[in-house]
């Protein structure tokens, strides 16, 4: 603002004081308006935390936190309702674990290939393909997991239930693959050429440069990619809601069906939940747990990526 007022005294012959004042006003007005828009995004987070806390607090008045965290039954619709959230967490982690077991090796291999081996022309045409894969709606993946992958797997694994955690886990692994591959490829490409050349000067082969130089140098970025991928797998909803079943089941056995946190929320939201009932609040308590898990992953991922960007 000081620049404008000094300009005002100098320019007073050329431009009217009123004109300059109007310009100063619009500049300040625009700056405040833009700040307000940026603050809306903060309000969204505040709103999320507010809703989750206020709706689940009454829940914890009736269900003790110890029961919530240690009970292995989740039966909100029974006469004798029990709320052991670990039932839902076990299924969530099982599915996410299967997804990562697919996405980590495949994503790493693809990232190494794209950043160290592929010619630029190949890389330029592969990236759009990955974006297209990322753009497929998750309900479609759910349909595919239930009606294509599960019957296919049942021919190999006779005991596989119609709703199981294996098929959605595998499909989800392919689903988060483009994301983990492109984030870790970005991290690898950000490693300075000089480091690679130093490796070649020592007589390293390309494979050795990739595994001994590039991957260690890009490790925080690659780790961030997989932590953020984990966060996505934990929060993914439609694939598990369609294909993993909706029966809360404390198990880590991938051939059984079990409701994840997200599937439970969907299931309860489909029925007409009376506003303010314990079952209604349990949805928000489960959502709160989900939010805390993903928030932890997201923050770790954010700081790892930031540290990586600062390093190079």
């Amino acid at each position, binding site marked *: 603002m000081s620049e404008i007022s000094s300009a005002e005294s100098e320019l007073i012959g050329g431009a009217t004081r009123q004109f300059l004042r109007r310009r100063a006003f619009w500049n300040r007005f625009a700056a405040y308006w*833009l700040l307000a828009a940026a603050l809306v995004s903060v309000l969204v987070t505040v709103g999320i935390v507010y809703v989750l806390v206020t709706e689940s607090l009454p829940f914890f008045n009736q269900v003790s936190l110890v029961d919530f965290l240690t009970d292995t039954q989740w039966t909100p619709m029974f006469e004798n309702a029990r709320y052991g959230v670990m039932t839902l967490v076990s299924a969530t982690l099982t599915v996410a674990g299967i997804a990562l077991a697919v996405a980590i090796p495949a994503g790493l291999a693809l990232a190494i290939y794209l950043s160290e081996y592929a010619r630029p022309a190949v890389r330029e045409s592969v990236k759009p393909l990955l974006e297209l894969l990322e753009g497929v709606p998750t*309900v479609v993946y759910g349909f595919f997991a239930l009606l294509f992958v599960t019957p296919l797997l049942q021919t190999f694994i006779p005991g596989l239930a119609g709703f199981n955690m294996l098929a959605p886990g595998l499909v989800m692994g392919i689903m988060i693959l483009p994301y983990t591959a492109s984030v870790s490829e970005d991290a690898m490409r950000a490693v300075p050429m000089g480091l690679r050349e130093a490796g070649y000067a020592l007589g390293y082969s390309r494979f050795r440069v990739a595994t001994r130089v590039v991957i260690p140098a890009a490790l925080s970025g690659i780790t961030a990619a997989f932590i953020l991928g984990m966060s996505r797998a934990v929060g993914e909803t439609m694939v598990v809601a369609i294909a993993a079943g909706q029966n809360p089941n404390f198990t880590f056995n991938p051939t059984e069906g079990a409701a994840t946190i997200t599937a439970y929320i969907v299931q309860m939201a489909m029925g007409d939940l009376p506003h303010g009932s314990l079952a209604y609040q349990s949805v928000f308590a489960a959502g709160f747990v989900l939010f805390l898990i993903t928030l932890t992953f997201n923050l770790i991922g954010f700081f790892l990526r930031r540290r990586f960007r600062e390093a190079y």
Partner: protein
Amino acid sequence: MEADATRVVASGVRFQRLVAANRRTDIMMASIGILVLMVASALLASVLVDLILTGWPRLINPDFYTNFPSRKPEQAGIISAMVGTALVMLVTAVVSVPLAVAAGIYLEEYAPKNWLSDIIDINVSNLAGVPSIIYGLLALGLFVYGFGLGETILTAGLVLALLILPVIIVATREAIRSIPRDLREAAYGLGADKWQTVSHYVLPAARPGILTGTIVGLARAIGEAAPVITIGALTFIAFLPPPPVQSTPPFVNFDWLTSPFTVMPIQLFNWVSRPQAEFHINAAATGVVLMVMTLAMNGLAIYIRYQLRKHQRS
């Protein structure tokens, strides 16, 4: 190990063999990468082919696109879902684009280096990772019950707008960042002030990048089912919302905002959740329509970006 290899090379004894071994690992690594790529593309293709094959009888039937949902699978159609999706996307675009572009401009051009900017920055990246179902809970607790907006098109449009806010913010920031400093300095040199520079020069130059981000964000919003399910859209909708335009003054009509609705991913979910295989045919056909829409939108975004890059290079 390395020292060993070097000595052997220096003596020239097993040089050929070492080169051959390195070449083998290179070929192996490249083939693993290509294999992963091929599996991923084969999956994309098989999803599409499986949907088309399963949904074919409904896809070629014009009634499918003009009928309402029905208890009889062979008469059920997606007209209410398509109209619902179009109207919800209208709300989403109108709300999210101005907000996200403004926030992106603020973060790139205005934000001073202080704790508040840091918080906004961290907040945007965290929002991008919040699961969509959590946005659904936000909408259920705040929009439906807190503000009393009910289970309406307006609520769905708002929640999807918040969901894609980070996508468009990030795209806007990248587009603005890629604009050379010279452009700004030329504008300042002509006597433009900050807002004039931003609104007359920076923003138009960033438009293709912002457009790309918006299309990608909207494509994501079209396919999202989770946040819309939680606000209670999974209903049997056998009517259309009142049209937004009418022939009598004032020609526009906002009653549709408060209408109950369904959208395409919800309709798909509804049909795939039923035990009868006849409904799965409808679900597959809906999936084809949905995938064609999202693939077309993402393809358009990729094309715009490609053109932009070609333009910048020349």
